[in-house]
């Protein structure tokens, strides 16, 4: 009787152990591509507020440049093997909603791995859009030199208009950080600043530079 009981318990134990092995992913689950970016020396484990804002706004700029930007984002994350970090549309939305300016802002933290994944995807997409980004920035420079408004450049006006409407649709107008961009001019400035940042992401060392810049003034 006792022997039977003990064998039963042993079997149970082995079953549960097997179950655990199946259920839980291996310990080193983060995709190897994330290792290319060094982990910053942060005072806390989660990403600071500015990182969460900047990453979401850069993606917003990509979406304003490319109508299919969010779709492309999912595809690229799949190509880069980042599926363990960004498994799907909902998770991507949740990660982006860690931006405190959003209407449906999540209190969940943004992990370093998620931030790394977004950084890599942003740089990859920015590289694809290099030609457009350069055109828009050169066009903007010419308009500035001639003191003309952005309406004289069709693509640029389209980009700015899309950026403004996406920003207003998604950001919580009651937040102080959003109130600062209440006028079209302020939002256009932000859109151009994001475009310039995207240009600097397209370079050879784009991911390293963007990643490092995100934590400027945050590390200890």
């Amino acid at each position, binding site marked *: 009787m006792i022997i039977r009981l003990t064998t039963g318990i042993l079997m149970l134990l082995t079953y549960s152990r097997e179950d655990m092995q199946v259920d839980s992913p291996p310990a080193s689950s983060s995709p190897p591509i994330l290792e290319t970016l060094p982990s910053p020396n942060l005072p806390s484990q989660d990403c600071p507020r500015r990182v969460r804002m900047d990453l979401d706004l850069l993606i917003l700029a990509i979406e304003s440049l490319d109508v299919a930007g969010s779709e492309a984002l999912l595809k690229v994350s799949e190509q880069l093997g980042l599926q363990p970090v960004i498994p799907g549309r909902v998770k991507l939305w949740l990660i982006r909603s860690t931006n405190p300016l959003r209407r449906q802002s999540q209190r969940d933290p943004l992990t370093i791995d998620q931030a790394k994944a977004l950084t890599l995807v942003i740089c990859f997409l920015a590289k694809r859009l290099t030609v457009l980004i350069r055109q828009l920035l050169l066009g903007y*420079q010419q308009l500035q030199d001639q003191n003309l408004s952005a309406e004289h450049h069709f693509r640029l006006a389209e980009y700015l208009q899309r950026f403004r409407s996406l920003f207003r649709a998604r950001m919580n107008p009651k937040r102080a950080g959003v109130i600062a961009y209440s006028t079209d001019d302020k939002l256009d400035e932000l859109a151009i600043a994001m475009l310039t940042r995207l*240009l*600097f992401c397209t370079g050879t060392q784009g991911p390293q530079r963007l990643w490092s810049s995100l934590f400027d003034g945050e590390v200890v």
Partner: protein
Amino acid sequence: MTVQRQYILPNCNLVIEGLLAGDEGDPTSPLTVVLNSELSFPGTADRLSGGREFLNAIVKTVSDYGQSLLSGVPYPLEENPSATQPVTLTPTDKHRHQLVATIADADGAATQKTVDLNSVQLFDLMEAVDQLLADTATLPDMSLQVSPLNRRHARPAEPVTKRVIPAAVGLSTLAASAALLFLVPVPEFEPQRSDREDLSELVETESDNLAESDASTATDPPTDETDAAAPETEQSAEVASEATDSDPEASTDNEVAEADAAIVDPVTAGIALGRLSSAPAIADDDLLNDLEAELESKLETALADLSDGDELPFEESLTYRVAVSETGDILGYKYENDAALENVDVTPLPALTFVPVDADSASDERVAQFRITFDPDGTVIVEPIDADAED
């Protein structure tokens, strides 16, 4: 063998001339010595050239400036070219950037050259530098060195004066409201004499009486009985009388056990009141009226029975306070004038007072308080005691 490495971008060309290391025949081996490095910007006539020192300065300045553009956090960069940092980059208006470089001529004289760059040109310059850094076949000793700026370089989101304003407004509001509230008089607290306080006062006075009346009870019946009894019973009787003296519960039991225990002395009444010190008051007006009427009729009947048609033995009005339970039982009483104390035995109160078995335990029964007055002509006036009206 002298070789050239070129990094060609739409708006910026970087050409490095140097000597090959190691195998002369292998064109991919890295450079050992940089003879000349030249920056040119197609579309403009600007050309900057210099040796290894110039190249190092360009790499450092462009890399840091690019990072500060990306993050928006200003890097500690020098504004003007110096001996240690011959190349500087500063932002100018309209999203432009000014590159200033100190370059030594062929004669050895140093001249300053200024190049205005727009964002795309600056990016191409940075990209040329990045490609050089990433190229292990040119200068493997140089590599990209970017690391996030420390916290102390973080620029506050708003200038100090702007950040101080909300705190100052808050503090001054607090001070102003404190000053205003100081002028408002402190509200006077009128202690409301609760029923509970009344009762505890009753108890105190009654326990004073307790000491006096003890003397009289000590000389009571038990001693008569023990005269004829054996020594053992004498002893036990002593214990009993001791108990009567000291233990109020024992005395209560004694009294209740006796046949003529109908008359309750002030001692037991006081004990009964002790139970009521924590009793809540009855607040229901209808019930109070009922109790008042009931009490009045009960007392008048009892008083008439006691006097039995004769004149009442007191000339003065006797005033007592009584506590009455919800069912109409008199739970305790207290004299309010001296005549009332002297003549308590001729009133029906001691007989009517309900003495509980466990007199020690506090009662949580609800009680009502009345002031009753026995007039010498046999009438009884009952009026409720309003706790608020007292004092």
